């Protein structure tokens, strides 16, 4: 399947772009992270410490074990600092 992957804040900066379209067979978010981290050093560096990474599937916060079936947009970002 094809999904849009988005990055924010310092994840976006380390990877070098805010969004990319990815062809994947990943079943869970964790599978997708493994695929992305294997793409190049920038992805590997941005996704190396998963405790510092939050994830949203189709704009809903979730966790690494969330299934990807039917998802169109996955976002990775650091812990949020609004308010």
């Amino acid at each position, binding site marked *: 399947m094809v999904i849009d992957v988005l990055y924010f804040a310092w994840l976006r900066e380390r990877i070098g772009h805010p969004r990319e379209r990815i062809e994947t067979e990943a079943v869970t978010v964790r599978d997708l992270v493994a695929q992305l981290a294997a793409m190049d050093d920038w992805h590997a560096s941005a996704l190396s410490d998963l405790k510092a990474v939050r994830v*949203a599937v189709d704009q809903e*916060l979730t966790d690494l074990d969330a299934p990807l079936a039917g998802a169109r947009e996955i*976002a990775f970002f650091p*812990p*949020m600092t*609004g*308010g």
Partner: protein
Amino acid sequence: MPARLQAEAFDLATELQGFGSGAGAVVTFSGLVRGEDGRLTGLEIEHYPGMTEKALESYGLEAARRFHLSDWMIIHRHGRLEVGETIMMVATAARHRAAAFEGAEFLMDWLKSRAPFWKREITADGPGQWVEAKDTDEDALSRW
């Protein structure tokens, strides 16, 4: 819409006109850009367009339901802000003060750690460090 995201500054007084009519208690919270003793000139606030609006509205509706708020409002800015500017505000209205206070604190705890905003410091030299999330903000959520 009681939840609003915008780059422009807003005026607390204008926003509060007519707010909470009929209620006995109105609480507001405003978050301002601190200068950190002159170290900063401002903040840059990044957000996740689409998700942000949905998150603000869903936390607002949840607060209204849990605390029986008769009215609520969230305004959050994004983009570049100078020291002293208002970053965001929440307002809650209820029959009695406990619900209005609790609703506002609930909203702030959720916005701080669960709404997709990221703050970066701006110094005289330009964009600086990303603000780190605080464990205390994460812990604050556990009380609800």
